[in-house]
């Protein structure tokens, strides 16, 4: 089905007496009313991701009575999720997120039909999963999946309710190619890998996904009700530190490769490759060195430079004794501080940033640069448990 806009004449599912009691504060509002609540009951919404954004989204959409809520999620609950992902409790750590989310959302509203999709969304399954839904909400955390969600929605003609967060800054829009621009009209190309840190590297204010996810839920409900002015062709920016909202005008790009006048992307592509992932230069297995081996070398008096490429706040949590801190983004400008004749053991939290750093160092002649396998996290496990894990 498609989104119902003629609520007066549409054939919609009736509300039970129990549902009428439950949704009474909606029903007495002229903007929702019985027909609007029935439209919510008829609606099928697919949430991609049940993490930071997905938590408020899922809870508000379920509470509001969206009839069918599809959840796409493959991850398990980690302790570091709990500062922002309110779907999960301390006792859920280690459980599949989708299982915990289904239980929680069923508690929120047993009238909602929950459909689990316990898979990683990719080009082979996205169209098939999304085709049965009226709209898709993007609560993902990486560029390849964002482009995948966008292209899937464009190809199926469905709205994509977009939200994204970083540290204390958020973005919201509704991308709907039939009525306005798509994600690619705004961001034709992803930034190269490593330039924009992920939340796992850059951090995120716990309350921020609560705000942005709630704004997405509001857009979803407006689209279903056909009320108000959806954020089509508008990008809302939120700065939590300065408490400022700003709005930018977005235009449909006639040359957009997926929704433009002459589209070149007419089926789903390899999004990892499109985002430049999985094609980093292979430096070979010999670039890695185990924490235990490094400890042995240090104990035997071998002269090593330990280079920490994390960010200063991470350095404050815990360090390897004697390490030099040069955050990865500053490394290229600060190579002069390092000695290319020495063996340099590079580490970050668990490996991605230090691997990139080793690639950069070797390119500039630091042939003895090595990557501490598993980062300071593995160091804490194998060598020094007094270094806190985070």
């Amino acid at each position: 089905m498609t989104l119902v806009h003629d609520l007066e004449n549409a054939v919609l599912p009736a509300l039970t007496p129990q549902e009428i009691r439950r949704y009474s504060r909606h029903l007495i509002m002229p903007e929702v009313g019985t027909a609007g609540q029935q439209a919510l009951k008829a609606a099928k919404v697919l949430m991609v991701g049940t993490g930071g954004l997905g938590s408020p989204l899922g809870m508000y959409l379920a509470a509001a009575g969206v009839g069918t809520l599809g959840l796409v999620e493959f991850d398990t609950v980690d302790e570091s999720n709990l500062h922002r992902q309110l779907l999960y409790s301390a006792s859920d750590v280690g459980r599949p997120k989708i299982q915990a989310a289904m239980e929680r959302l069923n508690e929120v509203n047993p009238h909602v039909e929950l459909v689990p999709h316990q898979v990683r969304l990719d080009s082979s399954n996205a169209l098939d999963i999304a085709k049965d839904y009226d709209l898709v909400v993007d609560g993902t955390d990486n560029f390849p999946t964002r482009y995948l969600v966008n292209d899937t929605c464009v190809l199926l003609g469905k709205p994509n309710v977009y939200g994204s967060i970083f540290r204390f800054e958020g973005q919201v829009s509704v991308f709907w190619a039939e009525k306005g621009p798509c994600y690619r009209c705004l961001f034709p190309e992803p930034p190269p890998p490593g330039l924009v840190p992920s939340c796992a590297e850059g951090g995120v204010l716990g309350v921020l996904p609560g705000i942005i996810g709630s704004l997405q839920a509001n857009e979803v409900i407006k689209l279903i009700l056909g009320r108000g002015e959806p954020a089509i062709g508008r990008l809302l920016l939120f700065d939590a530190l300065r408490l400022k909202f700003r709005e930018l005008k977005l235009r449909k790009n006639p040359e957009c490769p997926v929704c433009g006048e002459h589209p070149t992307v007419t089926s789903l592509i390899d999004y990892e490759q499109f985002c430049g992932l999985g094609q980093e230069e292979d430096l070979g297995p010999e670039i890695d060195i185990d924490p235990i081996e490094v400890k042995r070398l240090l104990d035997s008096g071998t002269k090593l430079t330990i280079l920490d490429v994390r960010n200063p706040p991470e350095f404050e949590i815990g360090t390897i004794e004697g390490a030099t801190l040069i955050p990865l983004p500053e490394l290229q400008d600060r190579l002069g501080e390092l000695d290319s004749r020495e063996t340099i053991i590079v580490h970050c939290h668990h490996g991605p940033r230090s691997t990139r750093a080793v690639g950069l160092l070797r390119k500039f002649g630091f042939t003895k640069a090595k990557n501490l396998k598993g980062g300071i996290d593995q160091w804490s496990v194998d060598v020094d448990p007094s270094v806190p894990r985070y």
Partner: protein
Amino acid sequence: MSLTIQIPTPLRRFTGERGEVQVEGATVGEALRRLVDQHAALQPHLYTEDGKLRSFVNLFLNDEDVRYLKQENTPVQEGDTLSIIPSIAGGGLR
């Protein structure tokens, strides 16, 4: 012309954590070059090695995308705001 450039969070580490920088310039391109003069570490994040603006850098003059104005040649007015809009992907699957 004096205008304000809004620096997005991922780039603030290159501007001494400043979210806004005041620069002079007659066009968007000129203003950006002044910004890079003041904060040289921004250079590789905004421009390619041959000096072209990187394609994933989105610039909005007030609320309009400069791609639909005159790109870097867009003239600016006193008091305008130029925003660098980053692609951010974070959401929270993990």
